[in-house]
């Protein structure tokens, strides 16, 4: 087993059955904290880089283009607040699966109630599509179209 796949197995096992405690937009990155808050030294944090979307049963709730604003858009902050309010639907949901797609290395996070968060490679040269951070050890697993890497 490679270091990358060993860390993936460990992080997946830490996240399974745990709950989403915070959903936040940082620039165009979607951050999901599992069993933790920013700065905590426990739990796991998922970072999804564009392109990503969040599905609720039967439809897409929001996606990374919804976080794209013109420079100095006076409504940007309000729109981010509205998006984060939509993402409130994820809070308290438990992690049911974490999977990496062969070939693209896209990440799918399946949550209770049929909610799904997915990435999608829109640039074959992207350096990072997603990351999972172990808040206790600081270990980070990063995914890109080239594969997985431990940071």
């Amino acid at each position, binding site marked *: 087993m490679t270091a990358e796949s060993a860390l993936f197995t460990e992080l997946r096992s830490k996240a399974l059955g745990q709950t989403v405690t915070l959903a936040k937009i940082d620039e165009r990155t979607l951050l999901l904290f599992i069993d933790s808050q920013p700065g905590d030294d426990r739990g796991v944090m998922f970072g999804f880089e*564009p*392109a*990503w*979307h969040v*599905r609720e*049963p*039967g*439809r*897409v*709730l*929001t*996606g*990374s*283009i*919804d976080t794209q604003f013109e420079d100095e858009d006076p409504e940007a902050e309000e729109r981010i607040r509205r998006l984060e309010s939509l993402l409130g639907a994820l809070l308290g949901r438990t992690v049911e699966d974490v999977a990496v797609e062969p*070939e*693209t290395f896209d990440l799918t996070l399946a949550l209770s109630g049929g909610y799904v968060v*997915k990435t*999608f*490679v*829109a*640039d*074959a*040269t*992207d350096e990072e599509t997603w990351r999972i951070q172990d808040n206790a050890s600081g270990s980070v697993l990063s995914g890109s*179209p080239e594969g997985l890497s431990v940071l």
Partner: protein
Amino acid sequence: MDLDSFFDDLRRRVLGRPVTFRRLAANTLLIYIDNEPGDGTGVTFWINPVWHVREPGQVLAGSRQAQVDDEEEFYRLGERLDVLLGLTVQDVTIEPGTFDLTLALSGGYLVKTFVAQAARDESWHIRDNTTGSRLSGSPQGLRIVSHG
């Protein structure tokens, strides 16, 4: 004609047929089956961002790579997509829930869309060039747009 019949009809017409032309209109990818621009025959797939093209084992290119100001870079991206020419259509599928389109081509090549904006008007359309009618997909569902 209802949505299912129209999709089935378009799908039947392209299965086993070759990609005869490709074009990037800004970051929209056009794939021509059995026709070239202006022919008035065959079927054309209009794939709006977000999309990617996969070759066996990896992603060949994605829509964000077409969002460049550098003309040479844009031209090179188009050249990479020439690998699709001559490949035949193996399947056309629509994903429930997102209405994303997957076009499977011979040799293990795939063209896939991805909804990254819940209120998007159109993710893709498939145009019957003989009648001008098209099947349009968005996160809200499918619709038929007659002629034009």
